[in-house]
């Protein structure tokens, strides 16, 4: 059995210093972090985009990623959705006494790899170790800082009738992966999280098309919840075409078995982009040139009818409301 984390390693004393040097600095180190002052000195050009998020996912390792890479991707993506270039991350760890040190090492290494790929630097951090039972293995908080590169920045308030809604790829992959692994379920075909940093793709998009009105990553609550938020923020109606919404067959059938709706499942590597219809073809072509946007397509449009609501046109030509999720999705009885 590997070594386990001790309360001493969060005490601030020598044990803590050794943990920081052996794990965190080794995997996340850079000249700013290496100065080890109380705060990091940075000189970004304003205006800035700032976002913070806490990650408590269970299981902490899943096909396609882990809590560490997720903590980088999630915050990088939130910053990127303002059309910003993410530059820096801070991270806070709450660790449970007894947590396997090998697992911690694997998670921090994965964070380092994700940060290098996204070209962001981890410039400050904090570690607390809490008594066994006071936390579930590992919680990570990350804060991201990025420079705004277009003005006005994309925002959920800027959707207008006449815009189209584009999605960068298939939906529900991450949510079904995590849910099925939490329950120990497996499907005939493997499902894998889409966990990825989207900042390089969003930069290409906003630089190539400064007319992007909205960029959002449909994480918790999925496409349905995110698109409802946009409809409400912008006070517009949205009509989505069910047949155009990409869902992988394995995700669709997994959801069918569990009584879940893929449109409400979390995604960690997808973009919703809203922009005037005349720019749709160029946006799709930019997205499709990037591996993360290969399956980009138009899934609907912004309208003036039914402001604040999302209507789904079904494959049969019928329609129904696509509302926000109430609480969490739970498996059904039959």
């Amino acid at each position: 059995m590997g070594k386990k984390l001790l309360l001493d390693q969060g005490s601030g004393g020598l044990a803590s210093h050794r943990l920081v040097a052996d794990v965190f600095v080794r995997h996340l180190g850079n000249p700013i972090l290496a100065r080890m002052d109380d705060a990091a000195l940075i000189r970004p050009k304003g205006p800035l985009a700032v976002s913070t998020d806490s990650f408590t996912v269970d299981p902490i390792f899943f096909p396609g990623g882990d809590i560490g890479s997720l903590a980088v991707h999630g915050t990088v993506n939130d910053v990127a959705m303002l059309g910003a270039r993410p530059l820096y991350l801070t991270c806070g760890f709450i660790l449970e006494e007894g947590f396997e040190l090998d697992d911690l090492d694997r998670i921090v290494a994965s964070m380092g790899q994700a940060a290098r790929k996204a070209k962001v630097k981890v410039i400050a951090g904090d570690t607390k170790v809490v008594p066994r039972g006071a936390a579930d293995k590992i919680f990570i908080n990350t804060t991201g800082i990025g420079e705004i590169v277009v003005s006005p920045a994309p925002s959920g308030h800027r959707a207008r009738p006449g815009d189209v809604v584009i999605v960068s790829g298939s939906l529900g992959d991450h949510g079904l992966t995590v849910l099925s692994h939490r329950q120990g379920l497996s499907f005939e075909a493997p499902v894998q999280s889409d966990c990825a940093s989207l900042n390089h793709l969003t930069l290409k998009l906003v630089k190539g098309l400064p007319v992007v009105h909205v960029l959002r990553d449909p994480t918790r609550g999925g496409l349905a919840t995110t698109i409802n938020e946009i409809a409400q923020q912008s006070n517009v109606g949205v009509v989505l075409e069910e047949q155009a919404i990409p869902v992988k067959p394995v995700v669709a059938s997994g959801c069918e078995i569990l009584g879940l709706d893929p449109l409400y499942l979390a995604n960690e590597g997808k973009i919703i982009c809203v922009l005037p219809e005349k720019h749709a073809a160029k946006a799709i072509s930019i997205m499709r040139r990037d591996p993360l946007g290969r399956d980009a397509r138009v899934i609907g449009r912004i309208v003036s009818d039914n402001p604040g609501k999302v209507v789904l046109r079904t494959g049969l030509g019928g329609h129904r409301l696509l509302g926000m999720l109430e609480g969490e999705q739970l498996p059904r009885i039959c």
Partner: protein
Amino acid sequence: MSSFDSLRDPDKCKAVLKLIEEAMQGQTLRFMEVCGTHTVALFRSGVHSLLPKSVVHLTGPGCPVCVTHDSEVAAYLELAKRDDVIIATFGDLMRVPGPGGGSLKKAQAEGARIEVVYSPFDALAVAKNNPGDKIVFLGIGFETTAPTVAATVRLAKEQGLSNFFVMPFHKLVPPALDALLSDPAMAIEGFMLPGHVSAIIGLEPYRPLAEKYGIPAVVAGFEPLDLLQAILLMAEMKRQGKPRVINNYKRVVADEGNPKARAILYEVYKPGDALWRGIGTIPGSGLVMSDAYKPFDAFDALGVELKECKPLPGCRCGEVLKGIMPPNQCPLFAKACTPATPIGPCMVSTEGSCAAYHKYQLDLSPGK
């Protein structure tokens, strides 16, 4: 084209819709979809928005959570308070409000030990891992789920487990349909029969009802073409005046049902009276533990009793479940009663008719 794609094919669906319109000439058809999954499928697929106005659909008592009586909810919420009890349940019941406003979700926040399971067999694993505690599985569901619960109880007996119990709240569909049809206030002219339940019981139990009340009935699947074909068959039988029971879901449902599942079911359980929300006691519409399995009955073993509960004030779930009132005509609908603040279980269950109307219906105003 896969068989699923074929059942969702817009052209085929449009062709059946046209046939429905032709078959409906001069008649109105008030059909009831018995099963909550059918209600959701009608809305989710958009079929509901495409049907001619002469097809009036009534939602029935086919959501297992919705028909769970207040007294039953109160009983398991009481049990959840015990320190030595772990409640194991399907997720659907977590947010169902009890008579005092409590729910399993709230009980969990207050410290009750509750495990959401995907199968009753998972509850058995909980029992094995917690030998010092009493694990009570909430046996909600119709003929579809009851055989699996029965198999779990049988396994618990074989393995000599003495800390696993079931609250048998199971309900049987045919006696409930009989009770609905015998009510003079009802004006049902066709039944879309539940696919999953029928896979277990087959067609036989429905035939006496079709004959006694002269009502067309079609066992239906859950894809758009399944739903539309069932409506077409009901309309044609009605027009021809030749009501009978048709199995239009042969890819899943055998006419004779599943005798193996029924054998397990009736080894562990025997028919008994059951309380239905909004309807009351229906004789022979429930399942009670047979004598050989009494030690696994939470009522007996843990001394639980069903106590009389006053219906929730203003809640019209009963009329909704009987198809007398469409969900959106309930005075509480989308006002006091929403998915965030459900007054009755029909608004909170994923298969509840009120929840389906609220979730999928674009216009929430009464009568729409």
